Structure formats: structure tokens, C-alpha cells
């Protein structure tokens, strides 16, 4: 029963990833896509957590933390790029 629930939640997460992916491909504007990518990252966190439970291991907890950080960094980088056209500003260039 427990396994069933876990599998079901994994499946739901996967399907939701698929839908996010639809938004990523289709998304009329680039910000739509960036948000979709961010959400995919968060979904991956969920999936990793569920997998960890299924596999009865705590080896992937690092991955969850890292995903959180990276999804944030990635989104910020994209946002900055969309905002200013570059990621790392060079003071001397201005």
C-alpha cells in the first residue's frame, strides 16, 4: 500500500513535470520558459525525495539541497540575463 502511494506520487510528479515541459516548449515568452524550468527543478526535488523514501536511503538528501540552491541560482541568472542582457556585470565596462 505504502509502495503504491509512493509510486502514484512519483507518477503524478512525472506527469506534472511533463506538463511543465509543455509550457517550457510552448511558452510564448522566454520568462514563461524560465519559470517552467524553475518549476521542473522544484519537481525534481520532490521526485528525488520520494525516490529516497522508496530506496530507503538518505544518500540523496544532498541532491535535494543542491537542487534547491541551483534552481534558485539558475532562475536568478536567467532573470538577470533577461533584464540586463548579461549575467556578470563588469564595473569597468560601464
Amino acid at each position, binding site marked *: 500500500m505504502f509502495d503504491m502511494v509512493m*509510486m502514484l506520487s*512519483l*507518477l503524478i*510528479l*512525472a*506527469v506534472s*513535470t*511533463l506538463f511543465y*515541459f509543455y509550457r*517550457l*516548449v510552448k511558452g510564448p515568452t*522566454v520568462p514563461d*520558459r*524560465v519559470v517552467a*524550468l524553475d518549476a*521542473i*527543478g522544484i519537481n*525534481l526535488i520532490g*521526485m*528525488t525525495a520520494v*525516490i529516497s523514501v522508496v*530506496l530507503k*536511503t538518505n*544518500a*540523496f538528501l*544532498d*541532491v535535494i539541497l*543542491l*537542487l534547491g540552491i*541551483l534552481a534558485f*541560482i*539558475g532562475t536568478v*541568472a*536567467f532573470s538577470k*540575463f533577461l533584464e540586463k*542582457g*548579461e*549575467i*556578470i556585470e563588469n564595473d569597468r565596462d560601464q
Partner: protein
Amino acid sequence: MSFLHLAILLPFIMALFVPFFYKWFKNIHTGWFVLILPIILFIYFFQYIKPVSSGSNTYSTADWIPSLGIQLTVYMDGLGLLFALLISGIGALVILYSIYYLSGKKEELHKFYVYLLLFMGAMLGVVLSDNMVVLYTFWELTSLSSFLLIGYWHTREKSRYGALKSMLITVFGGLCMLGGIILLYLVTNTFSIREMVTQAPIIMEHAYFLPAMLLFLLGAFTKSAQFPFYIWLPDAMEAPTPVSAYLHSATMVKAGIYLTARFTPVFGLAPEWFWLVTGIGIFTLAWGSFHAIKQTDLKAILAFSTVSQLGLIMSLLGAGAASLHFESIDNNVFTIATVAAIFHLINHATFKGSLFMVAGIVDHETGTRDIRRLGGLMTLMPITFTIAIIGAFSMAGIPPFNGFLSKEMFFTGMVNLLEFDLFNVDTWGILFPILAWIGSIFTFIYSMIIVFKPFTGKHQPEKLEKKPHEAPFGMLISPIILASLAVLFGIFPNVLSYSLIEPAAASVLPYLLEEGESFHVHISHWHGFKIELFMTLGVIVLGLLLYIWLAKWNKIYRLFPQKWTLNNAYDRSLRGLEKGSLKIQEAYMTGFLRDYLGYIFTFAVLMTGWALFSKSAFSFKTDGNAPVGVYEFVLAAVMVAGTVTVLFAKSRLTSIIALGSVGYGVSLFFVFFRAPDLALTQLVIETVSVALFLLCFYYLPELQKREKLPFKLTNFIISLGVGTVVTLVALSANSQRVSETISKYFIENSYKEAGGKNMVNVILVDFRGFDTLFEITVLGIAALGIFSMIKLRMSRGEKS
């Protein structure tokens, strides 16, 4: 190491010192120093006449590469001695002549004598080596030094052309010969020519016999300017005249003759040898003499005459090989052909050397070699004229000069072939004496042209650049000596018979002789009323008539269009080769990376696919595979969709985002397949590389074409092929595991041996830390590379 070795090496050693002589003794002509060497060598070789003619040959070995059977073996027998005497003797005369011919002030003498000494040493090496690899080494050295000598006046276009042509043709032949040497080595397991001769019956039976023989003949024919490879010789006349006299009449062109003679005992029994050597020789004789007449340059006439005379000697060697089919020398009429070949070889060296020197004198004193501008030099240059008469009459075969004797023997040899009853000679054999006779008539005509056109007739001083006068005495010494030899050998031919000719013939036809036997060589002027005599009479009469009416029938030479000449064929094939290779290169070296990638991928797909197909290596087994969950399917679908999006995205940004999603998907797969370290790294790297892509974006021009990538069918097919093949290989590899993995060891020992519980990390830094070290190095190099690429942008015109 004997003194004979030293004799070969001495010219090379001397060549080392020549530039110093040139530099230190500016006032003395460098040639005087060089002259000493060939004279010493000649005297040294002269001492061998007695032992060699009494049948004791000298043999001496020095180590070079003994592990490969390559030894510096010198072997002095009749043939080698004859050539060594020719090389050193005529070498001395030519150097003496060149002292007066080349001006010490205008010419770069040190180069000239270095090249000439190189050539002399190489040529001595060719004729005295018993080891075939050593022979080949010296053979190529003669080609090389000949190339340098022909191109001596390297500022002239024609010299360079002639040098290149002779180089290409003779090196082509040399390489063929090397092939023949290797084949013979495979058959007999020795490089020694003497041992090869003893194994001749084994070689005859072997499958490599014919290819080896043909390759050897190619080498001999290119070097000795036989049809159709003679074309380099007339162009080699751009060399200084001493060089033409030495290399292109007396010595180098006879290296091919030497090779043919040397290998007659090995190959001589084959019918192909007989037909090729005799046939091509006799054809070259007729062809060369026929074409000599239309030349207007004295040296060009002499070049074609050399070609034709070499053909004569070659055909005689071929005819002489017929004698090998008899058990002994009793009643063996064909041995006379070999004797005649050797005799004519000596004679040709004497009269052709002197004629070249005459041509050089005429050129030197009048400023031209064109027979149309020359005339009436007889009274101005009486000595030169006398030498020319002796040389040319000897070449034409007029008594009492030596050419007459060898020509008579040549006719005898050719007529004797009619009695030869093997290889269908009875049907086509009649052509030999006929062609020989026709060739001799033309020989007679051009010999007359050489003498009478420049020296008789009307003197036209206005056409000449200089006021002609007799040459300085020093220049005349060498041709006088050669001409006297021509007369001497003509009147007393038997001084040569048992001293030089018989031992040489004995080494060409070694196993005909019993112990203590020798060839009967007696050269006499008077044979009685035989067919040869009438042939000679016919040659003289017909030749004279044709010479007198030369102007009338001269026009037939215009019948042959320039297009059909062999020179034209050579030039065209060379140009065609260049153009063709340029075209091929331009066709596939497009300069576009995508084309090269196309070749690489196509090749990989075709080779791998062909291997899979031809070895029927594909297999697909599912047992042992893990079950696949639904979420894995969904994730795979996401990744496929991401990949497809990358391909069909309209903007680059979409591609990058899609690529990022694929990377994240991969990291989730790592999670599914229980690889936490990989997942961690993959996530970080994916994020960093997406950020890097975005960084690049800033510097790209405004998202250029926002349209889709253009669809190309070939690219599509190639990429499909690559994907299919790689997938098939992966499936087959997975289905055909042959042994257990070694991971068990790591599982058991990572804590026990290395004290770590994270097995991946233990492998990375402990069991296989070496790889990690160099991955670190790679990263370091990449970082440094990026740093220097950004910082050092000199091509942008900034300060360095």
C-alpha cells in the same frame, strides 16, 4: 674493411675537403686538387687487372647492419673492374677538362667538385658492391648527384626542368629496383649478389621471379635511358659539358647496363628477359638514332646518340643471355654478343667522351652549339676537328677505329640470333638484324652531321658571338687521350681482350665456364667475306647517300606532330597529375568543418555498420535487464521532448533552456539509478554550463536568424545513421557480456583497504587516483587556456 672499401669512400672524404681547398687556395683552380684522387684510384684499380684476368676475384666485407644482412661487401671481378677503371679513368680526364672548361672566377667550383666527387664515389659504390641494399643506396646517390649536377646552373629555367625530369624518372626506376631487391630477398633470404647467382634455379621457379625481374628491368631501363624512359637524357644536356661527358655518356647511364649485365646470371634464362632486354634495346637503338638526325644542337645529337648506343649495348646483353641455354662454351655462338656488348661499352666511353668534349670546346670557343650557325671551323680548329673525326667515325663504325670492330661484332651477334631456336625467335628474330642495320645507317648519318656540319662548309662569323679559335691546350688533352684510345683500341683491339673483356664476360656468364676455361676473345679486323661485312658496306654506302640527300628527305620529321612525342606525353601527364590532384583536393578539402564532420561520421557509421552486418554481430537479449517503471518512461519522454526542442527551436534561448531541462533530466536518472555523486556533479555542471551559454550569448550578434535550422537531407541521414548504429552497438554489447564485472572487488575492499565508505570517491582518489590527477590537469589547462584567450588578444590590433 679493406683498401677497396677506402677506394669507394675516398671520393666522399675528398668531397668534404673540397670547400676548404676552394676557400683557402683562391688562386689555384680547385680542380687541380680534385684531379689527384681519380688518378690515384685509376692506378690502384689498374693493379687489379692482373689478378682479375687470371681469375682471382677480391672479396671483402665490413659490418654495416649485420642484423639485417646488410653488409658493406665489395667484390672486385671482371665486370666491376671494367667499370671502376672507366669511372676513375674518364673521371680523371673529365676533371682535367673541367679545369679548363669552367672558369675559376665565375663559377662556384666548390659546389661543382663536391657534386662530381659524390657522383664518382656513388658510382664506384654501385659497381663494386656485392650487397644489393648497398648497391641501391649508391644507386640513389648517383641519381641525387646527377640531379645536382644537371641543375648546376640553377638560375636557368631549363636546367631546373632537366634536373627535375631526370630525378623523377631515375628515382622512379630506383624505387622499382628496390621493390625487386626486396622480392629477391624474400625468395633467397640474402642480399648478396654472388649468393643470388648460385641460387638462380630456385629463383627461376619462384612466383616472384617475374615481378622481380620486371622491377629490376624498370630500374635498369630508366637509368640507362631506354625506350620510353630515354626522355630525361636529352634534357640533362643543360648540365655543364664535363658533366654530360662524364655522367650522361660514360658512366651513370651505364649503371643500368651494369645492372643488366650483373643480373644476367640470375634472370637470363627467362624468355621474358631475352625478349625485353634485346627487344627494347634494339628498338631504342633504332628510335634514338632516327631522332638524333632532326636535332640541331650538338649536345642534343650526342644525347640521342647515347640513347641509341646504350640500346645497342642493351640488345647485345639480351642476345648474350641466349648463350645461357647451352651447357658449355663449345660452339656457343651467342657468347660473342656479350663480348661485343662489353667491347662496345669501352669503345662508347672513349669516343662519346671525346665527342662531348669536342662539343664543349666548340661551344666554349664560338658561343653556340647550334649546327645551323656553325660551319667552316676546320681550318680554325684543326685539332678539335681531328678529334671529332676520330670520334664520329668510330661511332659510325668506320675502320680502322674501334667502333668498327664492335659494330661488326654487333652485327654478328644479331645475325647469330637467327640460329636461336627457343622462344619463337625463328619467327620474329629476323627483325633484330634488320632493326640493327637500319639503326646503324642512321647512326652513320648523324655521325657525319656531327663532323661535317660544324667543321666544313661556309664559315659564318656574323652569326657567332665570339671569334672562334683553337681551344687552349689544356682543354684538348682529355679529348686527345680519348681519341688516341679510340684509335689504339681500333688498331690493337687485343690489348683489351684478355685483360678486361674476357674477365668481364666471365662475370656476366659465370656458369658456362668450367674450371680453368675462358672465353675465346679474339677481335680481328678481317672476318672474311661474311654477311657482317656486307652489312657494314651497306651501312656506309646507304648512309653516305642519305647524308648527301639529307635536305631532301629531312621533311619526314615534320610528319610527326609535336603532340605525339613522348616529351609531350610526359609534360602532359605531369600537368595532369598536378591538376588532377588539385581537383581532388579541392573537391573534398572544402574548408568547412561540417563537411569534415560529415566524412568522419559517415566513415564511422559505414565501418561500424559494415562490421556489425558482416560479422552478424547484432544480438538483443532482454534477460537480466531491470524492470522499467512508469515514471522512468515519463522522464525519458521529457528528455526526448527536450532534445527535439533543441533541434527545432526557433531561438537560441529556447534551445539553451531545453538543453538545461535535458541535463536536469539526466541528473534525475542518476538519482533513479542510485548515483548520488553523479547526480550532484551533474546538477552543478549543468547549471554552470547553462550559465556559460548565457554568457556567450551576450557576445553573440543580436540573435541572428530567428528562423529554424535549415533542414538538410544528408545531415539528417548521417545523424540518423549515427544514432542507429550507436544504439545497435550498445544493445549488442549489453547482450553479449562475456565475463563478470570487477566491481565486486571494490565493494568488498573499499572500506577494508582504503578506509572509505563512499565507494565512488574511494575509486576516484584511491584505487584509480591517477585518472583523477589528470582530470584535474585538464581542468587546470582549460582554466589557463580560457584566461589566456581572454587576456591575450593580440590579433585584435591591441598592444601585446
